């Protein structure tokens, strides 16, 4: 289907490659985006499309195939293939005229306004959007480091880690123990660990029904807790045990060589161990001195860094206020940032910032739940306007409809990101 958006995208691409340099005789303003996920890909696409070729857009992303973190739990549960989570950047380059650079951005020179690339050279910008996702805090879980991620996968950046965790799940001995070390707040995708537990339980209940799941959790409570616990009791009775901070869930050490966890001094052997460590903003933000205590604080109306008005920070790395760290939120923030960047570079109209978020989770086949809210820019942080959450005791039909809704959302947001 040809619609106005894709049509404009095509003309923008043509104007960008053929007409602009010759006609204008000077360089167009340059927007550079670091990170091709829900924040970065969306921002690049909206700037390129809506500026009708007036802004030169570069997207720096090391991988050629992006695997969405959202829905990767459904792959663990057997509801999706890994291929169905993969997306490429071809349309952004071909139809939107975006200069897609597959390389690592290794540093930001804020004075010179350039981004250094691992492959050599640098990319100059007038406005920079940084959307690198999260990095793990070294030493957050004693005994665990990136070097141990094969023995005890995090699977919290989708791709090979997710496939590894699925393989370990499949190979787990009969009646074995799947342990998860859950992260402290704030972290990417608040319901994510608990949807993952649901999906692992779904797989085990069909393939290894005497296995057990042990959650070691430093948090008192978690997102959609009542809904998850209700679902676990209904679908996976007796399989899942959660140890919260009162019983040592916040005092955990792991031993990857011997596949043991130590909870409050007590040693327990486990068969699979999914360690999701504490998180912080992507390291490129730390290195560029754009963070304070782990995250990059932004102004809510434009997502500009409070440290540097030429830099916008999106998604998981941003400290913005009330929005959760989610792909939906990053996509929403990207549209506000894209509008602000266009306004700064081409004087296009500036509208009030509007954000929204919905997080769907699957508990078992056709049992979907959701939580969400609308948001606006407050004085110095993003504030919630209205919120909603699925209810206990909803009918099977409502839960099935919620799951179908999430399938529709996946298709829509990925085409909103990648064209």
């Amino acid at each position: 289907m040809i619609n106005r958006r894709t049509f404009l995208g095509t003309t923008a691409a043509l104007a960008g490659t053929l007409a602009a340099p010759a006609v204008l005789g000077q360089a167009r303003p340059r927007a550079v985006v670091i990170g091709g996920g829900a924040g970065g890909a969306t921002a690049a696409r909206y700037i390129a499309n809506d500026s009708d070729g007036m802004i030169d857009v570069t997207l720096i992303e090391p991988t050629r195939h992006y695997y969405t973190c959202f829905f990767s739990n459904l792959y663990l549960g057997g509801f999706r293939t890994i291929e169905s989570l993969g997306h490429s950047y071809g349309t952004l380059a071909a139809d939107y005229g975006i200069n897609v650079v597959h390389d690592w951005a290794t540093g930001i020179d804020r004075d010179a306004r350039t981004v250094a690339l691992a492959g050599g050279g640098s990319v100059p910008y007038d406005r920079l959007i940084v959307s690198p996702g999260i990095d793990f805090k070294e030493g957050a879980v004693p005994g665990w480091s990136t070097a141990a991620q094969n023995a005890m996968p995090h699977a919290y950046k989708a791709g090979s880690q997710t496939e590894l965790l699925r393989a370990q799940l499949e190979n787990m001995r009969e009646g074995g123990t799947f342990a998860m070390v859950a992260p402290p707040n704030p972290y990417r995708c608040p319901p994510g660990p608990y949807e993952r537990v649901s999906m692992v339980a779904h797989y085990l209940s069909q393939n290894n029904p005497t296995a057990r799941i042990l959650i070691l959790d430093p948090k008192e409570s978690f997102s959609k807790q009542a809904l998850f616990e209700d679902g676990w009791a209904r679908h996976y009775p007796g399989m899942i045990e959660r140890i919260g901070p009162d019983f040592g869930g916040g005092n955990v050490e792991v031993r990857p060589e011997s596949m043991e966890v130590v909870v409050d001094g007590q040693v327990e052997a486990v068969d699979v161990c999914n360690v999701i460590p504490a998180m912080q903003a992507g390291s490129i933000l730390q290195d560029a001195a754009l963070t304070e205590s782990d995250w990059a604080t932004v102004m809510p109306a434009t997502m500009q860094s409070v440290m540097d008005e030429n830099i916008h920070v999106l998604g998981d790395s941003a400290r913005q206020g009330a929005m959760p760290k989610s792909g939906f939120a990053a996509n929403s923030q990207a549209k506000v940032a894209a509008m602000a960047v266009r306004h700064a570079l081409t004087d296009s109209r500036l509208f009030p910032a509007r954000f929204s978020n919905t997080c769907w989770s699957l508990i078992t086949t056709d049992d979907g739940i959701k939580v969400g809210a609308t948001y606006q820019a407050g004085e110095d942080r993003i504030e919630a306007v209205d919120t909603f959450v699925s209810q206990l005791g909803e009918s099977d039909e409502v839960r099935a409809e919620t799951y179908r809704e999430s399938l529709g959302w996946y298709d829509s947001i990925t085409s909103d990101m990648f064209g």
Partner: protein
Amino acid sequence: MVRRVLLPILATLAGAPVALAQEGDAERGAVLFRQCNSCHVAEPDGPSRTGPNLYGVLGRTAGALEGVRYSPAIREAGEGGLIWTVETLDGFLQDPRGYIPGSRMSFRGLPDLQDRMDVIAYLTGDAPVVHSSELGRLSPEIFTIEGDVEYGEYLSSECVACHSASGSDEGIPVITGLEPEAFILALHDYRDGHREHQVMTTVTARLTDEEIASLAAYFAELEE
């Protein structure tokens, strides 16, 4: 008094589509209308006599045409939200004084459904047909607000995170290609609690009438 006003409003809300399937014959309606001629005309830009000009009456708020001496009962019904639609006019024509007690219209009514549909078809002429089911409880002015297309495009970015722009409606309906009226009705109905959906209720809660018009204008342009 309250009940008199409430009844027609409920009729508007319920919008019982009893008559919708019935095709009206405007030519036959013109003949039937002769018994109304002593008080009403039905011509584009025609004058009002004892009663209002009835051309294009569908979509009009009851008792709202300028320069007409309506009975207080009709005015109050309009102020209470009564809008003339196929369904409400059908109810009124069947039993005028039962439908709006206190109406001054001295007409016994048309007991036959086909007769009423024929008259409604004649009154409608080339003007739009308006059904209660499409109107919800909205006043016609809502549909005439001029939208800001560029603002609508910005606001639409919130919609397309979930509603596919590429025509797939698995799980979530496609909203491109909707008639602007249908689009406006749907958003107002969610916002005002006549349709239920957690996400849509939350998303529309903060939309003004002007913002809904802007979204409708943008999505309409998208299809051109």
